[in-house]
């Protein structure tokens, strides 16, 4: 039992909560200043990482299909994309493509490729390889409509090979997020040989990329092994190390048992502990007992929001109740109670690192009395058993959970209980969970995606882009739907930043004003690194650049 008291020289977490101008997404990642001062990086060593668990619903490591964050961290270092994104400014910077031109109507993108890039099987990366990649992805998205990569490729029609290192991509309709999409792992370019294999084979690891590491072995639910690629020399601009990676290999294990994972880390069996949920202050205190570094990055895309079911006959179809619900959630206590004292309080439907983020903090203050008045006005009167009733029916909201509830879910349940609202947490097995949600038998439901572009919310909340998922259909009363769709279209059909900023600002205002999104907490992704880890750098979408990392033998 580590008994060290809370270390006085508390390491300051760079989590500025300042309002941010639309486009310049201030970097909230922590830059390890000491790393640079520690002299030249040393070669060799294996970086051992422990994640929470593997994706058991969709078991795949094929870049185009994967939405699982942990896999995308790995893929970021195995398969590379045409462009990259500056983690601080969100600006698209060159990578495999040295430069690009976008036509006026935003339907033609021409990329000029680097000439010195080869795949790990030796074949060169040229325009033809890029065309094969895009066309294969398009064919796959047509056969499996629900696959995650499809929205990234929205509007892609075909590609033309101008010359060996120039490719022109034609879109059939405008997609403002397309340029950002080319920087994501989902549109990473694999060797033509990989696209000859079946999707299942790619899912199980038959992927050949140009990245600094090669995928040696993928055992579902057990782990992944990466080995350094010796002749690597074409990192993106965001990387510090221009050439071959310092680490010889990276070993990834899945350890669902939290006490075991922390125990392994404290005993020095692991260099990096990277679970899915943020650390509680107890964890942080324990990690700092071995002077571990706490690395945090707010993930771009929607915050952890609850979306209502306002279908007719549901309790939340009444705007007054929704407004009351918004006021009944105490986000500050949530951040402090469930995670840690200096955990950022969520300020709107988007995380702060999302381009065009606009804070709604003022409208999300905790106001239990306001909530009480609204509920009384709406006719839900509190009885002596503490619950609120309206003509005999108790104010009960149902929220389905998959497999297990977290401490946060129970805290929200209790906060609503204090407002007289019964939040019934329905813990369901995978199969039942999906049928329950698609039958819209829920009152509140949450899901999230990570992408450093606001258009990602469209894949959740825009019925036209979510194959009419129950969540997007039932989230709005008719008049709000019209406003939301207008803002989404505005944000999509233009490539000029000012236009997109105005559209997404309007969108964020509507979501909160009409109370069709209830932000709960900022989705912060935290990892604990051993003191030996140097030059850990977050990418824009919260992944890591393995080729920069090196292990300081001395610490």
């Amino acid at each position, binding site marked *: 039992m*580590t008994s060290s008291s809370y270390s006085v020289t508390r390491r300051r977490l760079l989590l500025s909560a300042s309002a941010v101008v639309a486009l310049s997404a201030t970097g909230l990642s922590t830059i390890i200043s000491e790393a640079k001062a520690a002299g030249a990086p040393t070669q060799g060593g294996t970086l051992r990482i422990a994640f929470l668990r593997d994706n058991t619903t969709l078991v795949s490591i094929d870049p185009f299909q994967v939405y699982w964050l942990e896999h995308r961290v790995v893929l970021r270092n195995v398969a590379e994309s045409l462009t990259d994104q500056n983690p601080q400014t969100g600006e698209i910077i060159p990578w495999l493509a040295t430069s690009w031109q976008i036509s006026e109507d935003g339907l033609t993108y021409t990329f000029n490729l680097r000439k010195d890039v080869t795949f790990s099987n030796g074949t060169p990366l040229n325009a033809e390889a890029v065309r094969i990649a895009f066309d294969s992805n398009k064919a796959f998205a047509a056969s499996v409509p629900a696959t995650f990569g499809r929205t990234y490729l929205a509007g892609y029609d075909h590609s033309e090979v101008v010359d060996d290192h120039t490719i022109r991509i034609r879109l059939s309709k405008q997609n403002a997020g397309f340029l950002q999409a080319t920087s994501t792992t989902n549109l990473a370019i694999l060797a033509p040989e990989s696209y000859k294999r079946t999707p299942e084979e790619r899912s199980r690891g038959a992927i050949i990329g140009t990245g600094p590491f090669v995928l040696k072995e993928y055992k579902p639910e057990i782990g992944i092994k990466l080995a350094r690629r010796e002749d690597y020399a074409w990192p993106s601009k965001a990387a510090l190390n221009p050439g071959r990676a310092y680490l010889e290999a990276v070993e990834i294990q899945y350890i669902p*048992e939290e*006490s075991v994972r922390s125990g392994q880390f404290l005993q020095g069996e692991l260099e990096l502990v990277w679970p899915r949920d943020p650390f509680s202050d107890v964890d942080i205190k324990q990690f700092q007992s071995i002077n571990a570094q706490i690395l945090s990055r707010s993930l771009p895309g929607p915050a952890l929001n609850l979306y209502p079911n306002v279908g007719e006959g549901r309790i939340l179809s009444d705007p007054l109740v929704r407004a009351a619900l918004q006021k009944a959630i105490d986000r500050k206590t949530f951040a402090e109670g469930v995670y840690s004292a200096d955990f950022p309080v969520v300020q709107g439907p988007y995380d702060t690192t999302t381009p065009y983020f606009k804070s709604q903090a003022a409208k999300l203050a905790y106001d239990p009395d306001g909530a009480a008045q609204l509920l009384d006005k709406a006719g839900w009167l509190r009885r002596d058993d503490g619950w609120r009733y309206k003509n005999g029916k108790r104010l009960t909201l149902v929220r389905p959970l998959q497999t297990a509830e977290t401490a946060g879910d129970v805290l929200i349940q209790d906060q609503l209980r204090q407002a007289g609202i019964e939040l019934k947490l329905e813990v369901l097995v995978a199969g039942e969970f999906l049928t329950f949600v698609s039958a819209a038998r829920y009152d509140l439901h949450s899901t999230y995606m990570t992408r450093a572009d606001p258009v990602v919310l469209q894949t959740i909340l825009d019925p036209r882009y979510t194959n009419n998922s129950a969540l997007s259909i039932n989230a709005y009363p008719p008049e709000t739907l019209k406003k939301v769709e207008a803002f989404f279209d505005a944000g999509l059909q233009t490539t000029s930043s000012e236009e997109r900023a105005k559209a997404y600002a309007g969108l964020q205002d509507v979501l909160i004003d009409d109370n069709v999104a209830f932000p709960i907490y900022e989705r912060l992704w935290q990892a604990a690194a051993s003191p030996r880890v140097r030059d850990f750098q977050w990418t824009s979408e919260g992944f890591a650049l393995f080729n920069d990392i090196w292990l300081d033998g001395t610490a």
Partner: protein
Amino acid sequence: MTTPDFTHFSPLAPAYDDRTDSDDVPIRSARLRRWSETLSLLRGHPGFLLALAFILFVLLAAAMPTLLTRFDPYATVPLEKLRAPSLLHWFGTDELGRDLYTRVVYGAGLSVQAALLAVSIAFIGGSTLGLFSGFFGGRIDAVIMRLIDVMLALPSLLLALVIVTAIGFGTLPVAIAVGFGLLPGFARTMRAEVMRVKTLAYVEAARLGGAGWGRILVNHILPNASGAVVVLATLDFGVAILVASGLSFLGFGAAPPAAEWGTLIANGRKFLITAPWLPLLPGMFVALAVFALNHISRTLEEVSK
């Protein structure tokens, strides 16, 4: 010519000396005689009384938890989270600041309910099957015994997982799943006991006295055979609690915020290093309860011999 000999001494049966003959001898039923005797014997075992007291505490917790604690099991006080056991919070507080002792007390209701239901399902189902196969024997016995073998062949916890997934989470499905696992034990015990009693001389005597099998079953076989099954019931009550806590440990317990003992251990295991009392104290409580039940059933067995 010889007077009945009562001076005869046998070390087993206590000699008694009734010379008085009287017409109006009140004839009392055997039942109260037996109960008064067994109770007097039990008083002699201190360990038994301690175990009984603990189980009564658990049953009281299950029936009326409000008597044993003034905290609200669901009220979250995040600022008070992960406090070590103290005079205020006997078992300390959990990750949301709720009083762990209160959650254990309120958990008793769910766990005891699940265990009680499971044992009664297994008791009724198992004993009937065991009775039929022990009493009729032959082909019926063979068929029932193969069925029991099948149920034994299926790994009980895995089967419980499947059943719970089939009929949903919550205390009742858990009870059915656990009951299904315990049923073979009761069937085998009842079958062995019925077969033993069926061959005893007093059953043949009753048979020759003209009694039909129905009457013999009810008056002779069942009372004498059910002794062992009752002892097994107390033993399996503890086992049921363990299996139910295993299920809720894997996340198949009651819907939150209610929590069975297994769920408490499961939630607490994240804090094994930082707040060890969170997973370890509920575990100790469960172990003590099951140990007490185990002790009670063993003492009952010894006394009834």
